[in-house]
């Protein structure tokens, strides 16, 4: 049979077989039979070299056209079969194959949660430098030089005459110096203290401080805001108590304890058998802090509070070693995806 006719014959035959095929296996077999290395179309192409030159181009073009046509038809039909899934027995118990999402660091999550609650109460988030001046970190906050209060916050000093902030309260000093009341701010961030690294203490930790200054702000407002925060963060139904404390930048000052949520105040290891957990320090902004910033402390009053982030995170998530946070073992991080 002349080659051209063979090609026409092959096309007719192949199209019919492809059209009738009902499985991927059959299609694959057809592909091999026609287009494989020893396939029928390939055989025609191989014979081209014996064709007289004047006819070769015409026949060659026809053979190629057939090859392309079959290829694309086969591909289309194979795809339609493949879409029906693999021809294995469907196993719904195989694990799904979505890629996993990463975990935001737990401290950032906790800090975010705390800020969110205060944001809901109208506190704006503000930041300041970690390397601070003595003035903003201490002096403006009524830590006089040579005052025992400075020993409450063991300090890292850096070369060049500054220090690593020991709390985020210097952001309060900066904002009070810059803005006019009403001011309602929350200041989350990293702080540093000269401590030995143990399961309970580290050289770096996070704090969320907040403060409000306006006309007529009272201690009752402070209590209201903090109680609302604790209920939201630790859950309804807990008991709380404020007891006097001392911070140079607030007067009167208080410590807020909440009833231990693990034992409901009965006493357990978490609360060292006291039934209470220390959560945050707070107080009315000391008039000298306002005066330092050029705010009339007769006209304006304010409150301030501050809480660590690691400690509530450890309490709430029952994490026993503070070093886990900076160790960044992914098995730890991924528990809080």
């Amino acid at each position, binding site marked *: 049979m002349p080659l051209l006719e063979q090609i026409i014959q092959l096309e007719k035959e192949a199209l019919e077989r492809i059209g009738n095929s009902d499985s991927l296996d059959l299609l694959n077999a057809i592909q091999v039979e026609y287009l494989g290395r020893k396939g029928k179309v390939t055989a025609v192409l191989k014979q081209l070299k014996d064709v007289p030159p004047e006819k070769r181009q015409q026949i060659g073009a026809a053979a190629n056209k057939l090859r392309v046509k079959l290829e694309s038809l086969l591909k289309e039909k194979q795809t339609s079969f493949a879409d029906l899934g693999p021809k294995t027995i469907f196993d719904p118990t195989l694990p799904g*194959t979505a*890629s*996993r*999402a*990463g*975990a*935001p*660091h737990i401290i*950032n999550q906790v800090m975010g949660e705390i800020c969110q609650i205060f*944001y809901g109460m*109208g506190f*704006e*988030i503000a930041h300041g*430098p*970690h*390397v601070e001046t003595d003035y903003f970190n201490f002096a403006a906050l009524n830590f006089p030089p*040579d*005052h*025992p*209060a400075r*020993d*409450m916050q063991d300090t*890292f*000093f*850096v*070369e*060049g005459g500054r220090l690593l902030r020991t709390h985020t309260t210097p952001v309060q000093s900066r904002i009070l110096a810059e803005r006019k009341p*009403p001011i*309602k701010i929350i200041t989350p961030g*990293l702080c540093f203290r*000269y401590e030995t690294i143990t399961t309970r203490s*580290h*050289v*770096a930790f996070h704090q969320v401080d907040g403060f409000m200054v*306006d006309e*007529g*702000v*009272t*201690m*009752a*407002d402070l*209590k*209201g*805001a903090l109680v609302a925060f604790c209920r939201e963060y630790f859950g309804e139904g807990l008991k709380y108590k*404020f*007891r*006097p404390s*001392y911070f140079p930048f607030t*007067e009167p*000052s208080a410590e807020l304890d909440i009833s231990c949520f693990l034992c409901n105040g009965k006493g357990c290891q978490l609360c060292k058998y006291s039934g209470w957990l220390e959560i945050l320090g707070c107080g*009315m902004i*000391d*008039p000298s802090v306002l005066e330092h910033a050029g705010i009339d402390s007769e006209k304006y009053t304010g409150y301030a509070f501050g809480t660590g982030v690691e400690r509530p995170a450890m309490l709430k998530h029952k994490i026993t070693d503070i070093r886990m*946070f*900076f*160790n*960044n*073992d*992914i*098995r730890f991080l991924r528990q809080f995806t």
Partner: protein
Amino acid sequence: MKLPYSWLVELSGSKWPAEEMGDRLTLCGTACEDIEPTARYFDKIVVGKVLDIKPISGADKIRQATVDIGKEKLNLVCGAPNLEVGQKVAVAVIGARLAGGIEIKKARIRGIESSGMICSESELGISQDHAGILVLDDSCRVGKSLVKALDYDDYIMTFELTPNRGDSMSAIGVARDIAALSSSKISRPKFKIKPSKEKAGKYLKVEIEDKSACPRYAARIIKDIKIAESPWWLKKKLLMCGIRPINNVVDISNFVMLECGQPLHAFDLNRFGSNKVVVRRARKNEMFKTLDEKEHKLSPEVLLITNGKNGVAAAGVMGGFDSEVRPDTTDILLEAAYFNPAVIRRSRKFLNMTSESQARFEKGIDPNGLEYAIDRAAYLFQELCGGSVLSGMVDCYPKKIAPRKVAFRPQRCNDLLGTDYKTSLMKKVFKDLGFTIAGSNAGTNDKKLMVVVPTFRPDIEREVDLIEEIVRIRGYAEIPDQVGNIGPLFTPIHPQDKFKEDIRRLMTGQGFDEIMGHGFDDSRLAALVNPGQPLLKISNPNSVELNVMRNSLIPFALTVMKNNIAQRNLDLCLFEYGKVYFPPDARGNWREEYRLLILVTGQTQQTWRDKSRRYDYYDLTGVLENLSSRFKMPKLEFTGSSIKCFDSELSFEVKCDQKVIGKIGKIDKAIAARFDIKQAVYIAELPIPDLLKLCDNSRLFEALPIYPASSRDLAIVVDETVKAGDIVSTVREAAGKLAEHVSIFDLYQGKQIAKGKKSLAISISYRSSESSLESNQVDERQRLVVGSLKKEFNAEIRDK
């Protein structure tokens, strides 16, 4: 500070049980942290008398003793060197449970039956002393329970005091708070000195050179004392306060300090070296030996008590060795002084030593309280040491410190607290605290009270301090909770905070875990990763591993990787959004900035249908491209650059809009090895301020296309050195603005291609916003593309 409950009861007259007393004190700011029964280990301990001691053959450390405990005589094995016949001792009988978990059972030691134990102070939980057994006073009756014999049934209350409350660092100080809380009065012990005819002034003169550092210095002289052991009642008080009894002179000084808060110091008068006390600043490099036998080279920071020539005490911190009271001391010079708290603080810092006295001076004592203290001690020297108290107190007090008058407006107090207290109630609180209200001639009127604050409360200087006293005594529970004072109406969110959240979402969404650094670095590792870059050094580092602030996020990320690899967490996709710090520049400007670090290492997750592969450079650039498209930044470019921490073959600057905005590469092998890392690590680090500047937050809508796209694929073979980025640019240029997307979707090098060549498959999608493209329009563009590729790169077009 530890104080026995009974002492507080004695001074305050309180009837509160210990637990209640502790709670109430805590709620008024005198925090009671712990209450412990003193006789916890005294059950089944009785008084015994040692009748007989015999050696045990073959044992030289232990002996056997016969001890009479009243109803029987026990045979006991004892190892204490101080055991003697005739002593009264504390005997733990079978069933007793001692401190440290020792339970007394019948035992055989070296074949000898022992049915009890003779106890040391530490076994009874009285002190840490376990050198020998506790020898009881001979007045203790044999067979009596130890707790009764020693009158030891009490509670020890531990107080955690805030640094502003120097006044509460004594039994009387705490009792004052109890009295204020219960509207009662404290009762100080009554005593009477019988002074000798001789006058103290004959032996002593006091001169103060630095009157602001030492506003008051007083002394008494007591002669003919006999140093001995203190009586049990005194030792017991000290033991309960956690202070080790030494001898009657030292014990009396400590006892009076614990009682009223005034530190005292006793010098040996005969070793004092002169009859003159001179209080002055130490000279530079002046040498001084403290009684713990340490030599100090002083500076004028230290206030020195001298005998006119040499130092005899570092004022308020520690006495000197030369004039220390010794067993042969007979005459003493007793010092009671008031030093400026800030001066003591500086001395203490300079000397780097602390003491019970220093803690009290530093927090501020009562300058007018020292007569009581010095008389009380003198009286006890008279009673307990047989001393003769010389008449008169030598007192140098150039400028008397008077009680402060502080104006107080009841309305202001209510305004600040949000309370509704009546003025009469506030006055009562002040009265209960021992404050008085000055009369109208001193400025008191209906709206303002002039409150006279005794000198034992130096912390109260201002109206607000008095307001705190009101809330402290009334309790915070009386202040209402109020929600409603809203402040500013609008709460903005700042772009940096939003950006940080957006980045965090973007990164975690792509499977990256967030790590968090503490800001410190090891200078050696920092210099290795970032040689020659300035580092902000910590002046007082607490370890060499944390001696600088980091100037790059890379060393910490590698440390985190090291920690993870040690736990066999080998496949990591991490990011950190953290700060780096720099020393001040030449103009004194300090700088710290947030950076984003991205790290990949190890293998992708393998599933039952996807094979895993190694993470590499392109995983990082992919993330950066996602970042740039999320924030509509101009196109990122990666240009080769030799960055020290990276492998020279894989080290690039990230550029955007012609500016360098970060670096990306593969960590150099030698550096990785310093972190015990063998596997390939790819890291990118980008300063956030640069990224933030390039963000386009306008996020404008682009109309969706109306006409269909027409796409063409093209396979070319080029030299392997030709860059894909250049090919894409050439294609874009040739295809003109009809080319909507150009992408590389396959890359092949191998058997079917000549050596030194590579095959790339390019997909070009053409679209016009004005009409459907005809296939000949597209073909024409495609011909131009092919032409350009041939011309520019000598590309060979592969037949498809």
